[in-house]
């Protein structure tokens, strides 16, 4: 085509007459005979120039017609190893009791794909028919109300990006020896989504909240009827009756058809499969706010109602179990978040905390959402210890591991927001270390 165009632009008189390429003296009949007799030779002969697409670059998938449409897209088959890390403490006895941790080591940006969102469930995922599911709002209100899903879907909606973190996240890094598993298996009981739903305040106002109501009991429709008590101030502040996640209706594992969402607070309180809200004078002292999700101290007392998730960060790339193939340039990439509001700063150290550099932040304008931080790094092939340290807008600074541990009983397994350390050996192996 290029040749033809060039020729066309040239004046008639200057048009070359003696060079029309190898076809010049070949009539149609001759060409056919040659082709049939010497197809194999054609490719190596002058014939190939402009004559055959077979020699052009092009992988097998460029030479066959592509797959048809699918109703719901799936990741590439080559990305199949990107899976949640599943923890089932009771095994087959209670296969839905436990957690599935987000593979943060394989993800970038700040939004967790819905299918890779972390899951923490106490009695499995219920199979809820939205036509039958209802939400009851009662207790210390003027007008107890029952909401169908059709009703909830009609309300004005709010859309926000928030992280959700189980307060047991990173508890696997509290065992005596550092586990050599991917970052997500340690710190992936965490995810970040765009949530759309009805401000809880709107429903409380409709029901006529009474002044003596100071707490709200929230209960799920799972077979554990998981329940938590929530201070009314939070319910009237930024609490959301979430109906959509990342643009589509909630996934069953995330509370379909309706969940509570309490931005920045421990994930257990964002009750999934929400079926009941009861306004009360005091906390109900449910099993999950007494026997669990309380923080045991060295003196045997325990902190109760520690709702806000502490400021925290973790380097996701490079991270535990990865390998640096050669010395040279690497981008250190990670995530940071704070239940208190915005992340203001993330510092990165490559020498075990001896010196720190400020990372570039992405998304720091959003409170209670994941922030992506990045920093270029020249690895010289020497042993290194990588750490990140986040600071939020309230001035909270992510604590060192030993500082955090000193606050609690050695058996406390909640709210571990301490600094995470990865070592790089001289051979490029990246390991989980306690530093």
């Amino acid at each position, binding site marked *: 085509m290029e040749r033809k165009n060039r020729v066309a632009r040239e004046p008639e008189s200057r048009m070359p007459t003696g060079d029309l390429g190898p076809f010049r003296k070949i009539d149609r009949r001759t060409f056919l005979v040659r082709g049939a007799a010497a197809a194999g030779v054609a490719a190596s002969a002058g014939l190939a120039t402009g004559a055959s697409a077979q020699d052009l670059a092009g992988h097998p998938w460029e030479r066959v017609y592509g797959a048809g449409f699918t109703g719901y897209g799936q990741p590439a088959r080559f990305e199949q190893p990107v899976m949640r890390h599943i923890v089932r403490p009771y095994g087959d006895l209670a296969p839905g009791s436990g957690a599935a941790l987000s593979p943060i080591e394989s993800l970038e940006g700040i939004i967790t794909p819905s299918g890779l969102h972390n899951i923490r469930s106490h*009695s499995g995922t219920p199979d809820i028919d939205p036509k039958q599911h209802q939400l009851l709002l009662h207790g210390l209100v003027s007008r107890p109300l*029952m909401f169908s899903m059709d009703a909830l879907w009609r309300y004005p909606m709010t859309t926000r990006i928030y992280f959700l973190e189980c307060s047991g996240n990173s508890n696997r890094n509290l065992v005596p020896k550092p586990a050599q598993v991917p970052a997500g298996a340690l710190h992936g009981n965490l995810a970040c989504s765009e949530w759309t739903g009805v401000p809880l305040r709107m429903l409380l106002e*409709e029901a006529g909240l009474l002044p003596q109501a100071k707490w709200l009991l929230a209960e799920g429709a799972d077979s554990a009827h998981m329940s938590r008590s929530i201070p009314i101030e939070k319910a009237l502040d930024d609490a959301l009756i979430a109906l959509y996640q990342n643009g589509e209706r909630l996934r069953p594992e995330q509370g379909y058809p309706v969940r509570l969402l309490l931005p920045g607070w421990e994930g257990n309180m964002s009750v999934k499969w929400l079926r009941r809200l009861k306004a009360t004078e005091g906390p109900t*002292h449910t*099993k999950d706010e007494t026997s669990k999700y309380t923080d045991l101290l060295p003196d045997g007392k325990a902190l*109760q109602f520690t709702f806000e998730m502490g400021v925290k960060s973790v380097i996701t790339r490079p991270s535990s179990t990865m390998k640096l193939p050669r010395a040279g340039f690497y981008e250190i990439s990670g995530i940071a978040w704070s239940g208190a509001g915005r992340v203001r700063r993330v510092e990165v150290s490559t020498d075990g905390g001896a010196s720190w550099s400020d990372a570039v932040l992405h998304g720091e304008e959003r409170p209670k959402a994941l922030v992506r931080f990045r920093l270029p790094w020249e690895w010289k092939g020497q042993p290194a210890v990588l750490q990140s340290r986040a600071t939020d807008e309230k001035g909270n600074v992510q604590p060192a591991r030993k500082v955090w541990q000193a606050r609690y009983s050695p*058996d406390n397994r909640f709210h571990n927001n301490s600094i995470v350390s990865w070592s790089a050996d001289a051979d490029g192996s990246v390991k989980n270390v306690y530093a």
Partner: protein
Amino acid sequence: MFTPKRLVVAAAAALSACAAQPTSAPVKAPAFGEPVSAAEIARWDISIPPSGAGLPAGSGSVKQGEAVYAAKCQACHGAKGLGKPADALAGGIDSLATGKPLRTVGSYWPYATTLFDYTRRAMPTTNPLSLSNDEVYAVTAYVLYLNGIIGESAVVNAKTLPQVKMPNRDGFVNVSK
């Protein structure tokens, strides 16, 4: 399918609709909740606070609870509530300040009402909401007895359960704002 012409018409209609209704126009607050009767609320309301408000009629003894426990709880929580594979329910009293604390109903839970509440709403794990109120009271009594909190002849009901003083009742520091 939209023709280009129809697309233009639709876009123009959307624009004029925006112009016709300023965003400041007052809109009545939506109210889509339906009234619900006290009788219906009672069928839903299963949460029991420390006061015991909402505890149902019925009662259960330690002796009756031992039989319920053996039949429906022991497979997961072990003989005498010692645990494995599921959580231990008994023991650990005075262990909380040690390097190896054992948190059980007896050593850690601040309120006995929570034991009734949780057993009724969630247990047995594979068949929740299957126990009678008498069975829940009885197994509650048995677990409290295993921890030495009530005597062998005790009977638990709506009146006696909130009066049970748990060993770790004062073990929590409320840090909520």
